[in-house]
């Protein structure tokens, strides 16, 4: 804890006691509540991941039974996707920084913001109840009719948990959209917004437009399971493929809910640590919105072998390539931003480098799975697993950690130990690649997903992957330790340790309860280092 010497009362010391946190309407405190919650869910999901990897060391299922294994990968998916990845950056870092970055005192609806956190918590508790009561074994995709008629797991509790967490996500998105439209400080025009705000805005669009569809899908799933209403039941004329359409209508865009905020973080990091405006600002900004919109047109590429008509497959494959373009634009623009910059190797920047590299691999392998002929072979194999982990872990997780390191001094007022942080970034990068790169090969060789036992010839690659996972686990534990250490022993950070331009760096660290002593007036574009320098000199 920071000593009482702080002159001004910052948001951490504005009031005290557990009640002042649980009933807070301060977006910064709610951001921290989210941060703790999702960290818990991350490590919970991580434990499942570890068990999965240990089980897969040998071709025979000798550590846990098949049923347990199936529950492990289901819970890993459910925890990581619905309770960690989706809320991760927007609800924690976004919540904390989006209002500050646009010069607002708070989000438009602070009470709804707090409600969102409680909804996530309730949803998470339901999922944990399902886990403790006996688990759920449908896979995070809940495909019917397995989930409705055959599974013995706690599908209903998990489904309701996701339903409720979905409302948390919807309300966060709604709050962000209204805030960006109505709460910007004077002079903060759309094209002066930091790119982190743009990408969170685009994310919010997806949350608002997509999440209701997974909500109704979960309602139908639960109704089907409880009341046997037959909506997806072939025996009554229902169509299980309809479930897949409804599911992926949300769950494909959900991938962009997870990665877009990460892209926003990377734009901030690249700019700050090269001391230059992001190359092609408008292209990067609009590509976020383009990804959000185009992301809704491609869901059928998860269903190329599902019994969907070949013509629909054709349409979805074609559209899928359109969404590749804005992602490529971002990568090229970030790389170009480095050109003639003043590049610092601070820890957040290392994560940014890691993100660009891994996201590039993840994105390019996405072209493989979007290609109809190739997807038939690699669909539902480890190739797909490797692909989306390169996006989710190599992408979002890297960006999340990068962002956390970048804004940690602002949130807590303290610096973390730089050497330790660099070591952890390196460990995570190496561990990640060792874990997931072999899975591309495994997948192409034909190793199917969700297999408890596997043929002997795949063992070598699985062992490599498990070895990587243990490195990765160590890498993830390190920040947990040194971040806690820094709260007490870290160097005092000062308002702007990185020399960055954003509004969040113009206020004190940690920020005061209402973010700014007086409403800021914005006169420059985002990332305008030259103007900042000129002002300093003048």
């Amino acid at each position, binding site marked *: 804890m920071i000593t009482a010497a702080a002159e001004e009362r910052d948001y951490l010391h504005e009031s005290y006691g557990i009640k002042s946190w649980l009933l807070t309407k301060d977006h910064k405190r709610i951001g921290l509540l989210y941060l703790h919650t999702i960290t818990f869910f991350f490590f919970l999901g991580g434990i499942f991941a570890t068990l999965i990897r240990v089980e897969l060391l040998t071709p025979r299922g000798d550590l846990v039974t098949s049923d347990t294994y199936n529950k492990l990968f289901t819970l890993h998916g459910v925890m990581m996707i619905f309770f960690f990845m989706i809320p991760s950056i927007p609800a924690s870092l976004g919540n904390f920084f989006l209002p500050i970055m646009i010069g607002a005192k708070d989000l438009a609806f602070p009470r709804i913001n707090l409600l969102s956190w409680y909804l996530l918590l309730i949803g998470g508790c339901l999922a944990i109840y399902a886990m403790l009561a006996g688990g759920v074994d449908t896979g995070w995709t809940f495909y019917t*009719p397995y989930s409705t*008629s055959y599974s013995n797991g706690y599908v209903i509790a998990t489904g309701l948990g996701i339903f409720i967490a979905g409302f948390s996500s919807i309300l966060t998105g709604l709050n962000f959209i209204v805030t960006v439209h109505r709460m910007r400080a004077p002079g903060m025009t759309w094209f002066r917004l930091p790119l982190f705000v743009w990408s969170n805005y685009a994310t919010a669009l997806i949350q608002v437009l997509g999440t209701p569809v997974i909500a109704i899908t979960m309602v139908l799933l639960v109704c089907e399971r409880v009341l046997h209403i037959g909506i997806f039941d072939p025996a009554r004329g229902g169509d299980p*493929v309809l479930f897949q359409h409804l599911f992926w209508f949300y769950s494909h865009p959900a991938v962009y809910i997870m990665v877009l905020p990460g892209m926003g973080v990377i734009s901030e990091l690249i700019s700050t640590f090269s001391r230059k405006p992001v190359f092609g600002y408008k292209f990067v900004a609009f590509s976020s919105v383009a990804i959000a919109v185009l992301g809704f047109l491609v869901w059928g590429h998860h269903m190329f072998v599902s019994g969907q008509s070949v013509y629909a497959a054709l349409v979805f494959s074609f559209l899928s390539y359109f969404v590749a373009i804005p992602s*490529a634009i971002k990568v090229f623009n970030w790389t170009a931003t480095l050109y003639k910059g003043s590049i610092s190797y601070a820890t957040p920047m290392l994560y940014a480098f890691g993100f*660009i590299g891994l996201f590039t691999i993840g994105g390019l392998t996405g072209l493989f799975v979007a*290609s109809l002929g190739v997807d038939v072979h690699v669909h539902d194999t480890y190739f797909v697993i490797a692909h989306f982990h390169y996006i989710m872990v190599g992408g979002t997780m890297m960006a999340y950690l990068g962002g956390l390191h970048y804004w940690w001094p602002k949130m807590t007022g303290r610096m973390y130990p730089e050497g330790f942080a660099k070591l952890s970034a390196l460990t995570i990068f190496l561990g990640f690649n060792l874990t997931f790169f072999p899975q591309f090969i495994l997948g*192409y060789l034909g190793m199917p997903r969700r297999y408890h036992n596997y043929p002997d010839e795949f063992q070598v690659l699985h062992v490599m992957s498990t070895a990587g996972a243990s490195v990765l686990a160590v890498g993830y534990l390190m920040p947990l330790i040194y971040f806690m250490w820094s709260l007490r022993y870290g160097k005092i950070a000062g308002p702007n340790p990185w020399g960055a331009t954003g509004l969040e760096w113009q206020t004190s660290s940690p920020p005061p309860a209402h973010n700014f002593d007086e409403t800021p007036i914005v006169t420059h574009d985002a990332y305008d280092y030259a103007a900042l320098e000129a002002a300093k000199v003048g």
Partner: protein
Amino acid sequence: MGSELPLFPVQASTVAASVDHLVYYLLAVAIFFSVGIFLSIFYFAVRYRRRSEFEVPANVHGGMTLEIAWTVIPFGLTMIMFVWGASTFFRMSRPPDDAPQVYVIGKQWMWKMQHMEGQREINELHLPLGQAVKLTMTSEDVIHDFFVPAFRTKADVLPGRYTTTWFQPTKPGKYHLFCSQYCGTNHSQMIGWIYVMEPQDYQAWLSGGTGGSLASSGEKLFQDLACANCHHLNDQGRCPNLRNLYGSQVSLTDGTHVLFDEGYIRESILNPSAKIVAGYQPIMPTFQGLVTEENVLQLIEYIKTLTPKPGPQPAGAGKSAQSKKLSKQ
């Protein structure tokens, strides 16, 4: 396979090679761009590293030419991927007209295969080398998926309807069959082997089988279930004459048409009033629960024999080219 670590699975079907060729192209593009990005980042990071704490580089805001270039060029490259991938996919989706059929039924957690000649196999499928084979598949419970990596082929197997896949083996050997759609506890044990045999070995294997062909079992069922009481094999019955119908377009009471294929036959047995042939009454009872998926397949195979094979002449039957109208005068 053995001890060395292969990077590519065996190519054992006609499609496998073309999928791999497309993958080489994709790999080339992927390697080109990722290496390009890695090298640029590395070079910039070293060349423009921060030399003093206070340096502020000049603003560079962007360049339209560059933006257009790196939008248009990747788009062109991806369109090649799309067209190439789609044409491969269409080849995979359309079995050759003359391909013999094997029926596959998936259930938790086994594969049941039925050859037209009557042989049945569990978790194994014997195939002759060089012969294109079409699989018509359904599931008795949840969704499964028929995946043969060596053939680069995969198709979901759904309850309540038929799906199709096909392949033409090009290399004798023993290949993995996996279920690749998660289907419950023993999903990872819903595996089997595909044996590709020299044609003469295959014939020998076939003749080792017992029991009648699928069609003859179906004929017996057709009598036992009293189908023939209404479906006379002339035009006198209360129900449509099933001769010469397979593969043709049939007009329905609501004025639409439907292709008389496996799916329609199946639906008509299990849910007879869904699509009534024009000129007939919905009098047929459902056989849901009275017949198993296997029985349905036998009946289908029998009904198919009521339509003579087109023989060597081109423009194969079974396609819309041969459109017959059926209605009672």
